[in-house]
């Protein structure tokens, strides 16, 4: 399979990308609003005076601060440590404070953040470069990627190293780890450049201007997981990105990498949906892509890895799309992490009078921000200053008329109207049976609902309760196992003790039992 696909990859790499045969279930055809932000070329955002870096901007336990208030830090210096992804200072300057600050990923409660005052000199910490990625073993490479603070830049912010360490190359021989039988132990790499969200264009711009970084990142990732082939997927309506990527690939002449395109349809870029469309395999509902032998990474992540390995620059900046009808000059900016969103807005000419709502992330899945005094985090791909023209007008919620339109568009093949019913009643068992945890919160059901029911909102509210209930029943099962094991052990010890006593209490003259 791998040899054949490597050959086809070489044939197609110079021509137009092959389109994927698989088709996603459901989904929506949305009007793209990308031209606005791709008209201007990518440029670095201007620097600001203070940077705020929340310690929990990745999935998993928060990082521990490695600096103290008043300390001088260099650009790229480690300021927070955790198992999955470290945190680095985006500028050189003084640590002003380590305190609770509001952050976009936790709008409910402020989170512990490191505040750094920029001295404007950008003094770099000593580089760790000088070693090419081939000199690392796959395991060392994953650990190095964790030290570089790399997380999934597609918006998920899952630590990349943790994802890579879940592949069979790394888990083989590890105790208590079952490798699925149908996977031959070789993982295929999938690089995702499918920005199905109608407003986001940061991956498109990245490919247009830094396609070489993406390809180097792809080769590093392949080395880290022992992959023999890599598929880069983009949407069929991004001709400039395709052209840039194809010419960069021709330069690299790496026959293991192939480019494919999928029709522009929302949410084609969702991990599970994309794997199904490209490889024709469905990721089990209770499994991960590694269970079907696939690792999916965002192209931005690949480029960040390339910069870390080649230039020694950890993840301290990312591309952010600043767009919407509420912004004067929409653009894609290279932004240092921790920059206040207000500074980005100013950089793009400020708000227009029509501005009505600030959104972080896409227009479909993003979250509404209460104000712009929040920092850019690793997961911020896009800031939308939406006017009333951008927002779909919503009237008041009406009762469900059981039209079934939501089930038609659900890319996860769920029945949103049934979920809505059970979420309303708080019936957790029924929600579990109907696969609430498989909801990817894409918002397609909301979009088509003629009764204007905010379906995803209620699903999002129900998920933590169901997750807690599932965790409780798992804990109870584990507690029962330990309780029963303990009872068996105690019974065995008691029996052994009695046997010893009986042996001691032998009658006089009786021979000692052997």
């Amino acid at each position, binding site marked *: 399979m791998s040899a054949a696909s490597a050959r086809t990859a070489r044939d197609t790499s110079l021509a137009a990308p092959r389109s994927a045969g698989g088709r996603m279930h459901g989904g929506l055809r949305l009007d793209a609003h990308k031209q606005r932000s791709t008209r201007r070329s990518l440029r670095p955002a201007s620097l600001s005076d203070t940077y705020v870096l929340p310690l929990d901007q990745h999935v*998993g*336990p928060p990082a521990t601060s490695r600096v103290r208030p008043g300390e001088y830090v260099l650009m790229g210096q480690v300021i927070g440590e955790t198992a999955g992804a470290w945190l680095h200072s985006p500028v050189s300057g003084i640590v002003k404070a380590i305190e609770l600050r509001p952050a976009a990923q936790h709008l409910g409660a402020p989170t512990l953040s490191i505040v750094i005052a920029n001295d404007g000199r950008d003094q770099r910490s000593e580089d760790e470069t000088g070693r090419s990625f081939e000199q690392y073993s796959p395991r060392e490479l994953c650990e190095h990627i964790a030290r570089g603070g790399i997380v999934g830049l597609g918006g998920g912010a899952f630590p990349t190293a943790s994802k890579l360490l879940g592949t069979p190359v790394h888990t083989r021989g590890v105790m208590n780890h079952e490798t699925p039988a149908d996977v031959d132990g070789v993982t295929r790499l999938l690089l995702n450049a499918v920005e199905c969200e109608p407003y986001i264009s940061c991956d498109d711009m990245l490919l247009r201007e830094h396609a070489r970084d993406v390809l180097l990142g792809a080769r590093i990732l392949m080395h880290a997981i022992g992959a023999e082939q890599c598929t880069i997927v983009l949407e069929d309506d991004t001709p400039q990105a395709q052209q840039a990527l194809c010419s960069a690939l021709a330069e690299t002449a790496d026959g293991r990498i192939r480019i494919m395109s999928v029709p522009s349809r929302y949410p084609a870029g969702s991990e599970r949906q994309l794997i199904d469309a490209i490889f024709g395999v469905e990721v089990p509902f209770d499994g991960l892509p590694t269970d079907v032998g696939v690792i999916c990474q965002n192209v931005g992540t690949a480029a960040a890895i390339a910069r870390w390995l080649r230039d020694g620059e950890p993840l301290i900046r990312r591309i952010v799309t600043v767009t919407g009808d509420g912004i004067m000059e929409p653009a894609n900016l290279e932004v240092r992490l921790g920059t206040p969103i207000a500074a980005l807005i100013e950089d793009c000419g400020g708000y227009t009078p029509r501005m009505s709502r600030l959104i972080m992330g896409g227009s479909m899945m993003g979250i509404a921000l209460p104000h712009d005094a929040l920092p850019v985090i690793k997961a911020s791909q896009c800031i939308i200053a939406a006017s009333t023209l951008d927002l779909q007008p919503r009237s008041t919620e009406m009762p469900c008329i059981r039209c079934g339109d939501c089930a038609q568009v659900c890319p996860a093949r769920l029945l949103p109207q049934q979920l809505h019913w059970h979420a309303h009643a708080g019936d*957790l068992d029924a929600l579990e049976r109907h696969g609430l945890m498989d909801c990817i919160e894409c918002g397609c059901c909301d979009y088509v609902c003629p009764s204007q029911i905010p379906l995803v909102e209620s699903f999002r509210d129900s998920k933590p309760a169901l*997750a807690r209930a599932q*965790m409780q029943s798992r804990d*109870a099962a584990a*507690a*029962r196992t*330990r309780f029963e094991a*303990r009872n068996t052990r105690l019974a065995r010890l008691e029996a052994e003790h009695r046997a010893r006593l009986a042996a001691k209490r032998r009658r006089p003259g009786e021979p000692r039992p052997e």
Partner: protein
Amino acid sequence: MSVLGALPAMATVLVAMLLMTILAGLAMLSVLGAGRAATQTGYDSSLVRQLDALLPQTQCGRCTYAGCLPYARAIAHGEADTNQCPPGGARTAAALGRLMGREPKPVDPAFGVVPAVPFVAWIDETACIGCTKCIQACPVDAIVGASRYMHTIIAEHCTGCELCIPPCPVDCIEMRPPPALPRGMSS
């Protein structure tokens, strides 16, 4: 004469028929009874298992029974009500009620009050003298330690049953909120 002579014969036949009927009836009754008894025990044990599966397995004994399984048996035999499990909370009480076909009741506070996210035990390691009494009391093997060595609680294995607190001779165990949950599980 012939009529008189036939009478005893008829009586014998009648008596025989009557006896047979009674015997058959008895046999049938015993068969039915045995069948009923068999289904009763089969139904019973599966019911107990289903009830036990709904319980939180803290083995805390707050229900006044010796553990979760004994409480499940007591419910199945009609000795206990479905509202005696404070760690299970309203959800468990409702599920038990549904399974027993009864009106769900809230947990009776007389059996104790447990926070929604149960606290876990914590040992003050500077005060612990290493007596192993708490280890012997823990029903789920969530305490590690050895004689005359410091003990500690494995927080993620602790069910919050509080059974380790009374045996401690130096009162160095207290209940504390559990360590932070991963993102997405809180709230």
